[in-house]
């Protein structure tokens, strides 16, 4: 079942075109990853899906009454705002203490209930954001660079958890990440973005597509294969990731 369908989307921010002619769809239960260099419009496309961006042209269709769980790239909690984790989870919809604690457990952050949001570490913060997104019983879970501030094993574990959540709840997942190989390994479909959709398809297809290689180089492919064949994350494969990641970042920056 299609949850969101976007056709011919043009978006301009401050008069500068960010997205042109983007077609995009996501259906129930699939994990779709957006990749692309900085400034390629990944976050803008996500915000369009949420409805936070006014398109200059094109159509955005959302399933009526679609429940979205959103984990933003970063969330600044002003120090003047006192906010416990438990209270944050009940925003804007009130949930019982039982439900909020269960969601924290599911996101791997069970002990944080009474802590202040401003005291959390980066990783704890992301898990709390995930818990909040899960409480809405989303049909579509949206993660924007959700693993910022996590180390590599940490983010790999985070994405495995996303996969588990998808398998348990059947929600669709749309995510953006820079950590190409880690994210792509957990995805059903990858959309490579650079102001327009360069290429899309299965992770294997996209990572071997010439458009993708033009943007990111071919360095990630080996790591992707390595990762997919070795989910247990031994030290050797972790080492392989690092080399590959340096390589891909170097190429992307140039």
């Amino acid at each position, binding site marked *: 079942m299609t949850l969101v369908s976007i056709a011919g989307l043009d978006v301009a921010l401050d008069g500068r075109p960010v997205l042109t002619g983007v077609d995009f769809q996501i259906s129930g239960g699939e994990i779709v990853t957006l990749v692309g260099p900085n400034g390629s419009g990944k976050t803008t496309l996500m915000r369009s899906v*949420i409805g936070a961006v006014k398109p200059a042209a094109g159509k955005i269709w959302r399933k009526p009454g679609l429940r979205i769980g959103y984990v933003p790239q970063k969330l600044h909690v002003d120090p003047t*705002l006192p906010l416990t984790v438990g209270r944050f989870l009940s925003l804007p919809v009130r949930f019982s203490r039982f439900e909020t604690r269960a969601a924290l457990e599911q996101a791997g952050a069970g002990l944080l209930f009474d802590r202040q949001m401003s005291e959390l570490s980066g990783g704890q913060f992301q898990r709390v954001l995930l818990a909040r997104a899960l409480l809405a019983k989303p049909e579509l879970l949206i993660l924007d660079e959700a693993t910022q501030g996590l180390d590599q094993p940490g983010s790999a574990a985070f994405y495995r958890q996303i996969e588990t959540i998808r398998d348990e709840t059947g929600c669709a997942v749309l995510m953006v990440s820079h950590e190409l190989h880690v994210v792509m390994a957990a995805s059903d479909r990858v959309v490579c973005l650079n102001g327009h959709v360069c290429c899309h398809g299965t992770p294997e297809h996209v990572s071997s597509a010439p458009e993708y290689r033009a943007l990111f180089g071919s360095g990630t492919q080996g790591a992707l294969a390595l990762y997919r064949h070795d989910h247990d994350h031994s030290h050797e494969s972790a080492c392989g990731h690092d080399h590959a990641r340096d390589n891909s970042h170097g190429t992307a920056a140039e």
Partner: protein
Amino acid sequence: MSLLDSFLIRAALAGLGVALAAAPLGCFVVWRRMAYFGDATAHAAILGVALSLAFQLPILGGVLICCLAMAAAVTALSGRGHGSDTILGVAAHSALAFGLVAVSMIPGARVDLSAYLFGDILAVGRGDLAVIWGGGAVVLVLLWWRWSALLTTTLNGDLARASGIDPEREQRILTFALALVVAVAIKVVGVLLIAALLLIPAAAARPFARTPERMALLAAAIGGGASLLGLRLSWMADTPAGPTIVATAAALFALSASAAGLHRSRRAAKGVSGG
């Protein structure tokens, strides 16, 4: 004879009414860093007073119109190459200046300007009291109704959007509540000190609150206490009531800040000796 016949009782009720409505709203002003915005809105009120006097409108109506127009103008101007603090500064001071000029140009009526600039709480009549408590109640009901949506919007606009909340609408609700508080508070503390009633109780409440709701309740208590205590002090010392109320709130803020500082340093000392 009723209780309301005493001007002191009326003054106390007026101060209390404004404080109770201003404090929770003031929390949003603090959380959203809208202090300058509050100032600009409040200063626009003097223009509203001039408008009301010139066209013989009720003060409440003129002030509301000007405050909302000011909010709209500031929103329209922001993000066009000037810093938002610059725009708000320009808007606040021009509104005050134009308001003062406009009041002086009103023919015939000799207007007691200081009553509008610093308030005239001892002259509050039954009608004023009805306006203050009516307006305050509208503000509190608005905040109560939109509380969760406002909080979510305050945290992050996109987070609100994803939950089906329109952050711009919530911003408009806050702006309207702000204009209403300004309009009803003129009589109590005057245009120049309204922002203080919004900010100071909220700031004084912050160190002792762990949730937003607690902070709003505490701010209301501090604001209410400051207005009653300030009124009493001004009666005893024969000082102007509005400024005395604000000075009392400021003293409470100083107490709160030093108590919080003491608490922090104790905790730090404990941490050092314990570790």
